[in-house]
């Protein structure tokens, strides 16, 4: 299964965010606007980080914001937010963050195919820097491998 189709509404390029919460909210907004979640999912993603710390910063410059499957998730979805100015999450190694992915998963049982596709994209160590400098939605779609 390819990554959930990355609609234009799921991508925000070169956004300004004051802090990591604002950056995660942008990812939440993109998930909402692309129809994957209800607006409340932003708070769920922020709560995971408040509860467990900045573990979502899983690679240098990249945060994978996500919460558990729940009533706020309408469909599997991925959002990509690139930041004009990187924000700090408080991670010991991978700060500052320029790319925030928002991930919504309907069922834990089926999500491994989606994350396997994410691994296919990001195991290429140049993917994060290419996303950081991408200037358009189309460029980001191309890097994520589902340009239409």
């Amino acid at each position, binding site marked *: 299964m390819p990554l959930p189709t990355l609609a234009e509404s799921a991508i925000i390029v070169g956004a300004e965010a004051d802090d990591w919460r604002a950056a995660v909210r942008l990812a939440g907004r993109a998930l909402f606007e692309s129809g994957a979640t209800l607006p409340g999912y932003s708070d769920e993603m922020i709560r995971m980080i408040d509860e467990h710390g*900045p*573990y979502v910063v899983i690679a240098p410059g990249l945060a*994978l914001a996500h*919460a558990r499957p729940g009533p706020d998730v309408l469909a599997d979805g991925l959002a990509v937010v690139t930041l004009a100015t990187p924000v700090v999450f408080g991670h010991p*190694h991978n700060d500052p963050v320029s790319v925030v992915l928002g991930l919504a998963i309907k069922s834990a049982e089926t999500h491994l195919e989606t*994350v396997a596709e994410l691994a296919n994209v990001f195991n290429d160590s140049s993917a994060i820097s290419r996303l950081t400098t991408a200037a358009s939605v189309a460029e980001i779609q191309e890097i994520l491998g589902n340009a239409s």
Partner: protein
Amino acid sequence: MKIVAICGSGIGSSGILKVNAERVLKRLELEADVTAAHLSSLSSDAADAQVILTSAEFVDAIGPTNADVIVIENYFDTEELARKLEAALG
């Protein structure tokens, strides 16, 4: 051999660890069963695990365990995973 990848939600980041750990193990020709789990299911999922893969944030919460706890910094760096898994299993 049982390996458990732990994150706060049991999806997403632990899923990426599972997928990449399986790829690395195949490359190293090591046999292991890799499970993605979240902290609150840890006691049942990790009771018989030899290795726990996770982030620095979860080490304290995982607490005392017989398993080797391996902290991964870059989840997409399969070289880091290979190096640390080989050191723990080899």
